[in-house]
């Protein structure tokens, strides 16, 4: 008995975007970071571009699949790193969903990346404090971590903006 699974264009799109996100994620993971949790987070560019072009559902699939598969490939699945990654992804996706409900023109790529980065960092910090290191001294790191989140959020926002502009001009984004 054989079963066939038919894949749709939607599936393929999610697969391509996820693969792109995973590649960026893994490439970025070789960069040394001065503090745990401080990283450029450039894979978020894929998430935000997906959000703006294809909607939140696609972006959510891409982001969550990236966390899962990325952790399997790097070897951190179910580790504390994975828990923190997942917490960050869920929080930033929730904020992106809420942000997308803003009436009028709403947010652009820069705004989305900024709020997503801040939500991501805040959720990771809260998770780390609640689950792993319930020590008040941890709060000493919070201002530094949030500064990094704002900085890298703006950078990935700029990259997302330029990427989206470039892709749209080239007609590379298929409906």
């Amino acid at each position, binding site marked *: 008995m054989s079963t066939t699974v038919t894949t749709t264009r939607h599936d393929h799109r999610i697969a391509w975007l996820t693969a792109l996100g995973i590649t960026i994620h893994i490439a970025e993971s070789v960069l040394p970071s001065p503090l745990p949790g401080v990283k450029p987070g450039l894979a978020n560019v894929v998430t935000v571009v997906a959000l703006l072009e294809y909607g939140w559902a696609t972006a959510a699939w891409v982001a969550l699949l990236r966390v899962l598969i990325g952790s399997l490939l790097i070897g951190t699945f179910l580790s504390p790193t994975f828990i923190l990654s997942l917490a960050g992804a869920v929080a930033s996706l929730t904020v992106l969903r809420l*942000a997308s409900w*803003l009436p*009028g*023109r*709403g*947010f*652009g790529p*820069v*705004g989305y990346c*900024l*709020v997503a980065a*801040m939500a991501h960092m805040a959720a990771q910090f809260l998770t780390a404090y609640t689950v792993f290191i*319930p*020590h*008040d*001294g941890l*709060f*000493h790191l*919070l*201002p530094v971590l*949030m*500064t990094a989140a*704002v900085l890298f*959020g*703006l950078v990935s*926002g*700029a990259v997302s*903006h*330029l990427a989206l*502009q*470039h892709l749209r*001009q080239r007609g590379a984004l298929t409906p």
Partner: protein
Amino acid sequence: MSTRIALTRADWLAVILALALLPALYLRYWGDAGPATAVRISASGQPDITVPLSSNRRFTIHGPLGDSVIEIRDGRVRFVSSPCRGKECIHSGWLAHAGELAACLPNGVMVSVLGRDRRYDSINF
């Protein structure tokens, strides 16, 4: 290809709020911990002793190596004597600000100054 990055009104709002949040975080978590109000003496295997910083008295804490003597006087606290070898606890000197700590690790005794903000949790041996 144009390289201008256009921000919407909502984007600007987000940027402004983010940039306003940062100094607030630094002030809150890097700033003064508030006036020092009490001293907590923690020793392994014994319940914590918490006394106001205004009390002028000495405590003798019995640890595995012997007795550590802690003195509170004029709103400051210090280790007077301890049976350890390195005497780092005594060398920490007078503690006067909230969040400050001195500990005699070999004897399992820790002295912390408490203030309005609970900056540091206790250390368990």
